[in-house]
């Protein structure tokens, strides 16, 4: 391997690693606040990336149907609950949030798609379609399980993953899509040729990470999220509604998933189920960071990106095996480090 190839691989690794880092942060956030191991995060990546490619081709993305179906399901659950407690005054709000809003977005996209809007508008439309799916998924699948154990929530995650991948195949079909880059230019940086798309990915990741930091350090909602993650009972006692923090964390996760999908769409060809594997690489990163520390998780995710990039050079067929096999030595290390593992004994 010469220096050029090395640098090229490193660039590739850092670019993917930055996306994995975003995902790792979202996964940690959701886990800390809701104790949900959010496997279906990957599906948001798929939805966003495939929607972007379809909008580019002037086609109406299937995401609008998923959004509409999800919205109606959430409205049905909320509406049923309101009817049972005779809280009729809640109905208009439920209708606005879960029926009118998703349908409006769906119609807007259906109207706009054939007109091939500007790339920036496409991105906004994709966000408008995918981000609301976060709270909707939380409302439909997880909120009824808010008090369940981590393992039950994990099974729920696998069930949601199954449903979303199933829907993904129905509405996107089996073909692989890749969108065109935002910026086609390439720069010479010394010996290294940098693609503008890579710079985009890095810049967007950095901006998002800083934005998240500001949110958590300087807004009361961000602090409420952290407080919930630190002490759930304490959070309830100061009046932080757990449903709100759950929806908020899923909103952020969906947003991060959607942004990751938009960033990765021009780099990789995605199929209806690719997001699962991308999301899991974020998980491997988070585990490298011990499932607790945000900076360590981000570093771990960068490491995953680099490992993947270099192993695709040395043993491309075994790239995935190596990346996912990486988890074994990490677990050995974690296992040696933890003396006593009763800290999280489930409650009966």
């Amino acid at each position, binding site marked *: 391997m010469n220096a050029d190839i090395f640098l090229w691989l490193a660039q590739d690794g850092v670019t993917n690693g930055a996306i994995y880092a975003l995902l790792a942060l979202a996964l940690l956030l959701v886990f800390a606040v809701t104790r949900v191991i959010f496997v279906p995060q990957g599906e948001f990546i798929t939805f966003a990336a495939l929607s972007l490619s379809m909008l580019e081709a002037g086609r109406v993305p299937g995401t609008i149907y998923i959004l509409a179906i999800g919205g109606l399901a959430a409205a049905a659950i909320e509406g049923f609950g309101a009817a049972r407690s005779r809280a009729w005054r809640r109905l208009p709000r439920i209708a606005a949030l879960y029926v009118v809003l998703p349908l409006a977005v769906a119609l807007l996209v259906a109207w706009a798609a054939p007109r091939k809007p500007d790339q920036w508008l496409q991105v906004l439309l994709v966000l408008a379609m995918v981000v609301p799916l976060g709270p909707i998924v939380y409302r439909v699948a997880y909120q009824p399980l808010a008090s369940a154990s981590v393992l039950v929530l994990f099974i729920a995650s696998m069930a949601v993953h199954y449903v979303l991948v199933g829907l993904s195949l129905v509405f996107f079909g089996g073909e692989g899509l890749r969108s065109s880059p935002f910026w086609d230019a390439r720069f010479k940086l010394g010996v290294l040729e940098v693609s503008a798309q890579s710079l985009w990915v890095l810049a967007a990741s950095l901006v998002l990470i800083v934005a998240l930091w500001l949110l958590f350090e300087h807004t009361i909602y961000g602090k409420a999220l*952290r407080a919930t993650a630190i002490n759930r009972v304490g*959070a309830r006692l100061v009046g*932080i509604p757990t449903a709100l923090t759950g929806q908020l964390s899923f909103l952020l996760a969906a947003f991060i998933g959607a942004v990751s999908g938009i960033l990765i769409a021009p780099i990789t060809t995605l199929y209806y189920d690719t997001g699962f594997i991308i999301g899991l690489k974020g998980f491997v990163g988070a585990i490298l960071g011990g499932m607790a520390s945000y900076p360590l998780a981000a570093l771990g995710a960068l490491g995953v990106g680099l490992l993947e990039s270099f192993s695709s050079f040395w043993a491309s067929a075994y790239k995935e095996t190596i990346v996912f096999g990486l988890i074994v030595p990490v677990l050995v290390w974690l296992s040696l480090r933890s003396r006593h593992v009763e800290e999280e004994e489930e409650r009966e």
Partner: protein
Amino acid sequence: MSAALELEGFSVAYGKVEALHHASLRVAEGAIVTVIGPNGAGKTTLLGAIMGLLPSKGRLHYAGAALEGAPTEERVARGMCLVPERRELFAELSVHDNLLLGGFHRRREGARALAADMAQVYARFPKLEERASQLAGTLSGGERQMLALGRALMAKPRLLLLDEPSLGLAPRIVREIYHIIADLKRTGVSMLLVEQNARAALQVADYAYVLEVGDIVLQGPAAELAGHPRVIETYLGLSSAAPRAGAS
């Protein structure tokens, strides 16, 4: 006098085991009511259920409104507030942020109102102001209890539930805490106080209940109960053989 809190036939069960059976209890507006009893009698369970942390059966009226089944956040928004036995602070947030979050349900009142209350809390607990930027997890036991109380005050409660406020505290700090409780009473806050330290509780309270194995076995004005032989034997004296050491 109207009631701040009224429970009737109030039961709490863990699985099949009932930890509290058909309790009836009343806190008059502006009064301090104490529930005393041995460990495992169901006192903490009672407070948790009043806050909606545990599912309960029976009637719960707060300031005239039926709140059975209401989520905890609604109870907090209506002015109920619990200082739990385990304090339940946000250990990895600063003292300042802990207090700020105490006013979470008042976030729409604006930063100025909260800042004014924060200043009041700091005036009451100068120790907390010194440590404002320290993480809550680094505080000592007494400081934690002050932070827990301070956080509760930020919520501007109308009914304050206190679970073992003297637990694990040195006598000097216990005295301080009880001064604050008496002070709060003067501002019109109603209180439900759960204590092992029966003597202290009976001294500040207007009315008292004795809880044993999930049942209310005795009740009456606090001063009367303090003289009841059963209370003296079990909770106040170290059995009948002990000398009646008064609070010095």
